[in-house]
């Protein structure tokens, strides 16, 4: 019953919003090559369904691999940065590089250095790495000092403290980082695909060349659905891991 309470309001808002948009586009007379009607986009989803789904699967695969790599690398790098104050001060500013690098500019270079499909995964990795580092580091550095002292009183070594206290208490922050990185990984994958080909990115590029604005919107819609699905998956993970003990998952 509670599940319906969570799904129904956004579903209704979506349907009503789509209907209003449909009427607005029809009434305003905007030409279809500038802004297609939602009904035209739906029709394209049906007509080109198999092509779009195959592209969605490719993008999902590449985004997920890039995302998984950035999650693992992000946690490891954060662990390294949190090990000593001087390490953090020396190297954390350079981690920001991953946030600010304009991926569309280096994507052609990535294509030259790696194979075409690997380049897409690297794009997804680069774009989604920084939130993982930043959030994990924040979590590792904000362990309850009282608990840290308790561990020290009991004679726990650094590795023990890290594994049994700091990392578990950083899990909520890691999950926040995952939520942000997931969507970014999809964006990174699609940007990489503009240059390297394959997946929804190349569907968008092809459709744009053919002046099929409805197909562009259909592909973009699927990309958003992918990001949403990833977000939902991480929320589920969060609920499963945190429901017993963390305030954020307790109603």
């Amino acid at each position, binding site marked *: 019953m509670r599940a319906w309470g969570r799904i129904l309001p956004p579903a209704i*808002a979506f349907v009503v*919003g789509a209907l*209003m*948009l449909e009427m*607005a*586009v029809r*009434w*305003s*007379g*905007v*030409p*279809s*090559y*500038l*802004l297609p009607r939602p009904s035209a986009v739906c029709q394209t989803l049906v007509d080109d369904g198999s092509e779009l789904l195959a592209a969605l699967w490719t993008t999902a695969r590449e985004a997920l691999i890039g995302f998984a790599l950035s999650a693992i690398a992000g946690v490891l790098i954060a662990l390294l940065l949190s090990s000593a104050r001087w390490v953090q001060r020396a190297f954390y500013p350079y981690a920001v590089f991953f946030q600010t690098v304009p991926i569309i500019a280096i994507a*052609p270079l990535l*294509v*030259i250095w790696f194979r*075409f499909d690997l380049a897409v995964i690297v794009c997804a990795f680069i774009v989604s790495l920084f939130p993982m580092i930043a959030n994990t580091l924040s979590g590792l550095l904000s362990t309850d000092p009282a608990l840290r002292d308790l561990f020290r009183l009991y004679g726990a070594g650094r590795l023990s403290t890290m594994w049994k206290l700091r990392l578990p208490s950083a899990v909520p922050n890691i999950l926040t980082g995952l939520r942000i990185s997931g969507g970014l990984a999809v964006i990174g994958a699609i940007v990489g695909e*503009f*240059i*390297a*080909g394959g997946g929804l990115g*190349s569907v968008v*590029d*092809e*459709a*744009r*060349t*053919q*002046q*099929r604005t409805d197909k562009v919107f259909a592909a973009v819609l699927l990309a958003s659905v992918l990001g949403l699905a990833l977000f939902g998956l991480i929320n589920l993970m969060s609920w499963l891991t945190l429901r017993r003990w963390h305030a954020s998952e307790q109603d």
Partner: protein
Amino acid sequence: MRICSWLGIVGLIGLLAAAGCKDRGSTPSAGAKITFQLNWKPEAEFGGFYAAAQVGAFRRHGLDVEIAPGGSGTPTVQMVGSGTVDFALVSADELIVARARGNPVVALFAVYQTCPQGIMVHASRGLKSLPRLLQSDGTLAIQRGLPYAEFLEKKYGFGRLKIVPAPNGDISLFLHNPGFAQQCFITSEPIQAKRAGSDPRTFLIADAGYNPYTTVLVTRDDYLQAHAQTARAMVLACREGWRAYLDDPRAADALMQKLNPTLDGEVLSASAEAQRSLIETTQTNQHGLGAMTADRWKTLADQLMELKVIDSAVPAERYFADLDSPAGK
């Protein structure tokens, strides 16, 4: 909170509707500033337009023209259709597709009588023809959405070739991989490759039977109706500019190099030379530079229908306007 989100949705839809209702009728009359949108950075393929500006051809015909350079992915056909600009450059197949999608653009002047689109391979591979290339191994970088790519796929098939996206103007992958073939404009990438010490060999798509007019000056139907004199003046000015450029490209080349510092002077003059035979043909000697025929438009429309790129075509005369006769079309 719920009221706010409803208001937000309604406001957004209102904005979109207002944007779509932009008044397309209030375009400037002759004498007012005209924006002419190019579909790439300044290069030899636009030499005649810059020459027209330099020799004062636009001014002589009463036009105040601003040439706006484009880049990768500039949506010129949509910009003209929506009224953002009044004149732009597109290719003929783009125009036919646009019309089929409800975008009423019409062609006025075609720079390239022969399409410069080609596939560039390494001469060391010993491939003698385009069909041979398409049956070979290796990698081919083309922009798959383009009609010529569908034409090639339908006519010859891509066989064992690995198809990857086209590197827009960037030849580094070609230079480093002997098995790499890519789409190109015969006036551009092969010349750059040769300059970089490579061994390019180009097969023209036109030779395979697909030959759309390219670098075509277009405007909208309603603009043409309302400002036929301006459109005619534009065509005459462009014709003069291209004549000047073909006779001596050096002045316009210098201007384009200033506007596009990435241009290599030698490559630019080699491009200007290479494109002569594509621009000046027996057809243009008879009917003037940039002239077009209904037959070629019909052929192209038929090809696009066969490729299922468009569902329906209009009579060929609707695609272009012949503004040469004093009374216009």
